[in-house]
């Protein structure tokens, strides 16, 4: 690849409400990183580089070529930096499940900020806090006032906060796909239309699943993974384990399935599906091999925590966005 004479691509990587796994996934390019750094300058990447917010503020608008924003929008800092990076970046990518659909932090939308604070600072088994002290966003010290970002009641996706050009799904995204996308940009190849999900397939995970599926998928009862002696071959759903494959976009390389673990849905719904959980309820509604009212109620009871199972990575990005509380 001749990149000698081209100006280097300026890339920023930032984490909002995230675990850090997305940032680490970028490093999983291994020796390919040498090809990438030949063509790329990382101008902002808190996990790896000591660049301050004031340095980003000082960058001219649209001076960052590609920004990979991972993490959901959970507090005022996440939101502020998302807006700053939107202004400074030509292309803003929602990178990973949290930025794409809310991810694991998005599960907080099943409860409220007040309930979370009460649990964390008063009720949890390891908490000793007789005065019920809660963290505050401002603390006065002799030297001046210290401030912290404030946490929001709602967790939002990146696209619910700023305009997003591309989405790369996954928890974390498959690193090979990121390299492909970056290489497209570096080599100046035509890019997909704005708003596309890139680095993933159009079809569902089932389409690429290595396990054996029968035509008639029927299940009499649902079990937790530990209750099943997996044969390693048969479709996990057909063995009674809830696997999100039918309602999840492929492209991950079936990593969980290859580890004999059911899909949990981190790649989000396929192109033509508006809501991952709805698609899953539709799919397993067809599979349950029971007809009597009481039998249906029994098998539905075996689905522990439907909202958390069907929307594990996507509560803020789902149709209902959050629970009414």
């Amino acid at each position: 690849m001749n990149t000698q004479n081209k100006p280097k691509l300026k890339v920023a990587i930032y984490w909002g409400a995230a675990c850090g796994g997305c940032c680490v996934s970028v490093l999983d390019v291994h020796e390919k990183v040498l090809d990438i750094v030949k063509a790329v300058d990382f101008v902002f990447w808190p996990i790896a580089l000591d660049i301050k917010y004031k340095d980003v503020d000082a960058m001219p608008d649209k001076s960052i070529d590609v920004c990979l924003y991972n993490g959901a929008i959970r507090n005022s800092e996440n939101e502020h930096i998302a807006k700053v990076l939107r202004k400074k970046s030509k292309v803003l990518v929602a990178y990973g499940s949290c930025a794409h659909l809310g991810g694991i932090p998005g599960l907080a939308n099943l409860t409220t900020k007040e309930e979370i604070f009460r649990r964390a600072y008063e009720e949890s088994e390891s908490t000793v806090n007789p005065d019920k002290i809660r963290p505050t966003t401002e603390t006065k010290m002799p030297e001046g006032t210290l401030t912290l970002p404030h946490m929001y009641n709602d967790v939002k996706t990146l696209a619910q906060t700023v305009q997003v050009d591309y989405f790369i799904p996954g928890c974390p995204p498959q690193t090979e796909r990121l390299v492909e996308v970056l290489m497209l940009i570096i080599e100046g190849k035509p890019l997909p239309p704005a708003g596309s999900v890139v680095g993933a397939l159009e079809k569902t995970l089932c389409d690429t699943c290595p396990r054996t599926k029968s035509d008639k998928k029927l299940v009499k009862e649902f079990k937790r993974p530990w209750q099943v002696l997996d044969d390693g071959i048969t479709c996990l759903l057909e063995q009674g384990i809830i696997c999100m494959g039918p309602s999840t976009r492929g492209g991950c390389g079936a990593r969980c399935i290859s580890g004999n673990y059911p899909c949990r849905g981190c790649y989000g719904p396929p192109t033509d599906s508006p809501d991952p959980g709805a698609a899953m309820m539709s799919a397993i509604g067809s599979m349950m091999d029971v007809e009597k009212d009481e039998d249906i109620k029994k098998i539905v009871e075996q689905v522990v925590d439907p909202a958390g199972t069907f929307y594990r990575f996507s509560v803020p990005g789902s149709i209902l966005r959050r629970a009414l509380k």
Partner: protein
Amino acid sequence: MSNFEPTIVAFLCNWCSYTGADLAGTSRLKYRPNVRVIRIMCSGRIEPAFVLKAFQEGADGVIICGCHPGDCHYHSGNYKALRRYYLMKEYLKQMGIEEDRFKLDWVSASEGHRFAELVNEVTGKVAALGPCKISSNIARFT
């Protein structure tokens, strides 16, 4: 909220329930005018996303009607609808949507009165609950 008139979306299957609703009309049965009927070919065609979408767009209640068990024009669509209904009920409960806002019932082509009673029953219960807050909740995210 005594004069609150709820919006109820009813998905009716073409073969039994829509014909039943039609019979309620041709029999000149009086029932609450809050229901907005959407005809689909089979209750098994109702994707859970349709129901969520109805709530998203401001429905205060959703009704699903299909052929009685054993009578489905397509053999087993109504059983699929029933299984999805029970799954969705659990999900909607977790999302804080009151149980009375979502109802599945069977209405055959000859049961116009049953359709009228169902609409009155659901409308009454939903009117007592007041407007569903989920659509304004969703609007916060745009």
